[in-house]
């Protein structure tokens, strides 16, 4: 058994959901989309008590808005873990989020025109 499989490619030795204290869903974070924008509120600067290093890292990274997917990539954590951590931060009023139009509510004409204008200008 002890054949040294636990190299870098094997991933972290800490189980991913250890970071969330075993929680795999969070009321506030469960529905966050991969593209949901997360942004730290300036008013949250003094509320670090009880936050884990991962919470604080999100808080730092989201001084400018970042998506859930970008957080997962930058922090090298699964999307599900990021959702739970962001949920904690939403509940504590540390971050705000904005999600894409959901489900039946497809993107509207105004939004599509904005995207079209933006792409054309690239």
């Amino acid at each position: 058994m002890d054949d040294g499989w636990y190299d870098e490619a094997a991933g972290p030795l800490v189980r991913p959901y250890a970071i969330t204290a075993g929680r795999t869903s969070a009321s506030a974070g469960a529905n966050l989309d991969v593209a949901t924008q997360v942004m730290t509120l300036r008013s949250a600067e003094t509320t670090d008590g009880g936050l884990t290093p991962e919470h604080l890292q999100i808080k730092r990274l989201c001084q400018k808005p970042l998506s859930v997917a970008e957080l997962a990539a930058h922090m090298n954590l699964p999307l599900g873990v990021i959702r739970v951590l962001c949920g904690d931060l939403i509940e504590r009023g540390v971050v705000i989020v904005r999600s894409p139009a959901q489900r039946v509510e497809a993107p509207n004409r105004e939004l599509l025109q904005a995207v079209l204008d933006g792409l054309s200008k690239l």
Partner: protein
Amino acid sequence: MVSPSSDDGFDEGADTIPTPVKIIVAGGFGVGKTTMVGSVSEIPPLTTEELLTEASDGIDDLAGVERKTTTTVALDFGRITISPKHVLYLFGTPGQDRFWFMWDELARGAIGCVVLVDTRRLDTSFAAIDFFERRKIPFIVAVNCFDDAQRYEEDEIRAALAVPSHVPIVMCDARKRDSAKLALIRLVKHAMSELPVG
């Protein structure tokens, strides 16, 4: 959607948090999805992972690996800042068919999908076309013109893929920014044309 936390008086940033929009780039393995994402993205394409746990039971074909409880599915994506108010994310779909659940999440609220096809292996894109057609999500077919692949006419490709006439088919070079950009523009125009009138 803005979270309830923005309504409690600490919303000084609410006007600067952009609305995210998504476009999906789908297609078979090796067709150039990540290449296309990378050629138009303002950041080098990032990769993230989702863990499959219980959800993989009966889906993941890992017979004899009873103790395996997690699998990861990798997701490549890029980003284009459209304006201070809008940021566009391009997500490449995970190649393996067993990750349909991930496609569902990606497709939710998306503008639509660019289905990339390789004329040498059209069959690898059938699943993606079927997926978006069934869910009535706007999509276009972008033929990634590999240098060594034989060129076909649009109607030949349309017939081979059994794609309805209202679905645009464009020729592109996923490595080229302008070409990838034109495919995205075509998709957004198509999505607008599919909106209900009024």
